[in-house]
């Protein structure tokens, strides 16, 4: 019973991270139709930059976090400006290869700068477990839940109640029509990359104290985030959250009760099953194909 509780807790906190990463995928996909294979590298950048500022430079916690997110966001903007924008209207296959190239490049650069070692980021508020209603919980788990809820609520506010957020949604529906009513589509695309990079790096920062971080954590985390967004459906924000949590729970239970070695396979088997049988996601609406 005690084990089950631990599995559920770690499953939910990993799931929250997957949901955040998935959010990043969905924002770029909705604005541009691109699946950004470099998404995981923003997550890695978040963790590694926070580690760099906090541990190597000795900065306090909050400036380190803010600086890390800022730098990752700038990387996102540069990436969009240099590699995506010149290729607008290219076939998906070229865009896939470009984003893969960018992800390898960012990963390689991180390896050259920070080396190949795995590091642990100190937990934000210590490692003393809290006792809530007879159950133990690490403070970092609470941080993860709080940040995830905050991000989801503020992005909901942003996309539904601000003029820029509404403009971005308009671009997602129909970029041409949006530009006809005076929305600068290029700025919206750039904005989607920066928001996506910011959320991704934030996810990387808050998970780093629990899972350790190194230059190559981005691949797996990125793929899991993609899996979350596929389960939930690209068009559904709440669906992504549910998808992330579901994936986190299934993984944790699978690792706990079946086999830890096959933990990562679970995500990909789910991914394939969903893509085969319900490509619009469990919570998404079916889209008609346009020729």
């Amino acid at each position: 019973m005690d084990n089950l509780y631990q599995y559920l807790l770690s499953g939910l906190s990993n799931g929250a991270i997957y949901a955040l990463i998935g959010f990043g995928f969905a924002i770029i996909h909705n604005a541009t139709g691109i699946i950004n294979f470099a998404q995981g590298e923003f997550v890695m950048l978040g963790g590694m930059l926070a580690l760099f500022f906090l541990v190597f430079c000795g900065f306090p916690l909050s400036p380190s976090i803010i600086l890390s997110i800022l730098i990752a966001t700038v990387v996102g903007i540069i990436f969009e400006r240099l590699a995506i924008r010149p290729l607008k209207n290219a076939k998906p296959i070229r865009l896939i290869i470009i984003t893969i190239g960018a992800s390898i490049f960012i990963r390689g650069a991180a390896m050259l700068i920070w080396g190949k070692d795995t590091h642990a980021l100190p937990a934000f508020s210590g490692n003393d477990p809290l006792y809530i209603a007879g159950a133990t919980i690490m403070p970092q788990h609470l941080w993860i839940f709080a940040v995830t809820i905050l991000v989801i609520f503020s992005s909901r506010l942003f996309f539904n109640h601000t003029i820029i957020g509404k403009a971005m949604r308009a671009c997602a529906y129909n970029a041409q029509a949006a530009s006809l009513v005076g929305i600068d589509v290029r700025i919206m695309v750039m904005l989607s990359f920066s928001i996506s990079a910011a959320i991704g790096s934030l996810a990387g920062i808050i998970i780093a104290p629990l899972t350790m971080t190194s230059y190559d954590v981005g691949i797996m985390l990125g793929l899991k985030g993609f899996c979350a967004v596929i389960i939930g459906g690209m068009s559904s924000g709440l669906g992504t959250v549910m998808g992330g949590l579901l994936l986190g729970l299934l993984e944790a239970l699978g690792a706990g009760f079946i086999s830890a070695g096959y933990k990562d396979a679970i995500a990909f088997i789910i991914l394939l099953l969903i893509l085969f049988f319900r490509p619009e996601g469990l919570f998404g609406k079916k889209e008609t194909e346009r020729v």
Partner: protein
Amino acid sequence: MTKEKRQIFVFLIFALALLTIPFLLRESYLLNVLVFIGIHTMLAVALNLLLGYAGQISLGHAAFFGIGAYMSGILTARFALDPWLVIILAAVSAAAIAFIIGFPILKLKGHYLAMATLGFGIIFYIIFNETVGWTGGPSGLSGIPNLQIGGIIFDNDMCNYYLVWIITIAVMLLSINLSQSRIGRALRAVHDSEVAARVMGINAWVLKVQIFTISAFISAIAGSLYAHTMTFISPASFGFNFSVELVTMVVVGGLGSIYGSFLGAAILTVLPEFLRVFEDFDIIIYGLMLILITMFMPGGLISGFQLLAQKVNLKTKGK
């Protein structure tokens, strides 16, 4: 010369050049590199059929390479089956897996196809790692016997060179033929516009599954040859990074060009040997190459050569 005659001529020169190289090179290290170029060429050609001709991406092709290598490795090292028989068995098994998985997977398009094949590749990578009783797990599988025909044992670089390159040249010839057959034209039609191809009466879905199956078949043969020439295999050679490296070979060489695949395979095999001087730089350079070539040279390096050849041709004709 007609176009067809010129093509045959070019291919013959290419094949002859490759078959005479070992007489010029006495150094075994270079021959060893060339053996790897051969195996990589086979893989790049196989992926190019799918990526360059049909326009369908696969980020999981290392899985088929791995299936070939592990089936050959396990069945010959642990069960002492006849290696040649196992090569065919492995290739047919990989093709069967590709055929079965191909129907649902190739219904997907673009980014979704990329992610699905990636997931497929990672699942196999995890299987290679976790089925320790069969594959030896992360520490690898050793003691794979060399191939032999009659009295010849393929245990030195010279023998392996001919073994690998004769099969590679055969694969290249078949692929060139395939690309110019009815199937090849249909594939290009699907590449340009799947809807238009379907309107013309091409069953795009079945066609894509067919080419995926052929591609897996060739990749598995490359895997078997790899296992028998190396005599040791470990999962690290069959992971996501290698799948990406294969895509890089095809893109760098030139999408839809068989000679381009050879060029890409050669460059990506030789590059790490040079880069060993600046260790760890290879990954960042692969990334940069992928980005720059996709952005500025969508036809790959081979198209650059062709352009150059045309210019030279024009100049000499002008005189």
